[in-house]
């Protein structure tokens, strides 16, 4: 099949207009989950059809698209989505965060700070942060309408009671613009501070759950916590073994079956850019040779 068989970016113009209206509403009410008529996409739901529909609706011919999954540009999921838009929209793609105008992501926010004019599109599996505490949708809607969010703190209370600290490390709940409780999707809490007052527009699409929400540029995003158990980001004991970066999110990579392992940047673009600039970690040379510093996955 040729690209000509599709409308630009796959979705028909009427659908894109409908999704854009939902996006505009979401931007107007930061953190509020706007229902939309999610369409079937030629990929399974687990692949981020919500994010794909949002991206399809905002892409223009001049956009430069980056797609990441777990911080990496070359996992199957990231590669397929990138190819999908290359084929259906013919847009330029990149792995460089700074060059992208639209970045679709699952799990991570790039380490390179985002700039005004960039759009970060999140693929969201479960948009409702109160879902596991209150399964009744009529009730969670009411809680959002009345900003009754005490229950979310009950969850954090349970964490501390059980583990001695807030053990939630992914999908860590945030308050957006002091009004709506929001699930940042399965990003690590490490990335929560990056959402706060980001210069970029952040859009969230949940395909199966048919919800879109947004954090407009420069919006307050505050992670929930207790006075005596303040929010803390994950800390890593050592720098990236490849590029030596500190203060970035690291993945553990198992090297062999004898317990050998190393910690490397989860953001592969960030890591490669640093290595290209001459930064070296403790294990850089042997791995970097022949692989250009990119870890295998």
């Amino acid at each position, binding site marked *: 099949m040729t690209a000509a068989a599709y409308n630009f970016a796959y979705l028909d113009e009427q659908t894109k207009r409908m999704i854009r209206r939902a996006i505009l509403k979401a931007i107007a009410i930061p953190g509020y989950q706007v229902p939309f008529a999610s369409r079937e996409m030629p990929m399974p739901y687990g692949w981020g059809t919500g994010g794909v529909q949002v991206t399809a609706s905002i892409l223009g011919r001049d956009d430069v698209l980056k797609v990441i999954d777990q911080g990496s540009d070359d996992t199957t999921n990231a590669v397929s989505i990138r190819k999908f838009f290359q084929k259906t929209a013919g847009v330029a793609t990149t792995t460089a965060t700074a060059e992208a105008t639209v970045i679709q992501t699952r799990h991570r926010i790039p380490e390179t700070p985002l700039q005004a004019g960039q759009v970060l599109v999140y693929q969201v599996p479960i948009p409702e942060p109160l879902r596991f505490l209150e399964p009744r949708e009529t009730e969670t809607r009411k809680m959002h309408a009345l900003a009754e969010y*005490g229950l979310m703190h*009950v969850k954090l209370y*349970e964490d501390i009671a059980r583990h001695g600290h807030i053990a939630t490390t992914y999908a860590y709940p945030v308050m957006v613009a002091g009004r709506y409780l929001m699930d940042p999707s399965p990003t690590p809490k490490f990335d929560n501070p990056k959402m706060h007052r980001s210069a970029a527009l952040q859009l969230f699409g949940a395909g199966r759950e048919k919800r879109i929400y947004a954090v407009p540029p420069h919006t307050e995003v505050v992670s929930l916590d207790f006075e*005596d158990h303040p929010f803390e980001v994950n800390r890593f004991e050592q720098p990236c073994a490849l590029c030596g970066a500190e203060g970035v999110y690291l993945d553990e990579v198992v090297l062999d079956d004898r317990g050998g392992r190393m910690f490397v940047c989860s953001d592969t673009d960030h890591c490669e850019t640093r290595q290209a600039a001459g930064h070296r970690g403790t294990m850089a040379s042997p791995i970097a040779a022949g692989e250009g510093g990119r870890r295998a996955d």
Partner: protein
Amino acid sequence: MPTDEAPLLMARGVTKLYGHRIGCQDVTFDLHAGEVLAVVGESGSGKSTLLSVLSTRAEPSAGRIEYRMRDGVARDLFRLNEAERRLLLRTDWGFVHQDPREGLRMGISAGGNVGERLMAVGERHYGRIRETAIDWLGRVEIDESRIDDTPRAYSGGMRQRLQIARNLVTAPRLVFMDEPTGGLDVSVQARLLDLLRGLVADLGLAAIVVTHDLAVARLLSHRIMVMRHGRVIETGLTDQVLDDPREPYTQLLVASVLT
């Protein structure tokens, strides 16, 4: 029992119809701060219906209910907006269900169950929430060591006591109870009643207690309302009504012919 003040709750002509069937009809009474009112009557007489309307869980078909808020101003309960109504429900009121599973979060620890209302009104200090929860567990005779267990691991009597603690932690002024000792063994019932009586007296709580059991009414309440076919047929001080019932129906109830 103070009676000089304006009433805490005023019900006037409260009626609830389910289609053509009468839930309750034309119920009028005042409840004062610190007063415990028992609502008795046979099965189907409208006790639960009345309680759910009074507590705004159901809308009346006719009549008016006013409640004197903490600022002293009496408000028509069905003119409150939803936010005000829900705030009232989780701060100044309590609701104790017969089945504690309806009033507890079964997947959340006892501490979390007790702490929920505190967090709902903005408490954000874990240590204080925990201390208050421990204090309340003690007051309902649950050992501190059980604070991190979920109610699933509790006996029926413990669950009921936990439900009570969860309701009382925000120092409500009015508690609704629907057959609070209903599902429990007789010996467990006695202990719970004792505990309830102590708490109600210590805290100066007003309460409306629906019960089949006249012994419960006798032990807990100052006043009693006898319902039949949705209407209040006799009302008065509990001891007077139970010792010297006027209505033939009440006489039958007291003689334990009806249950």
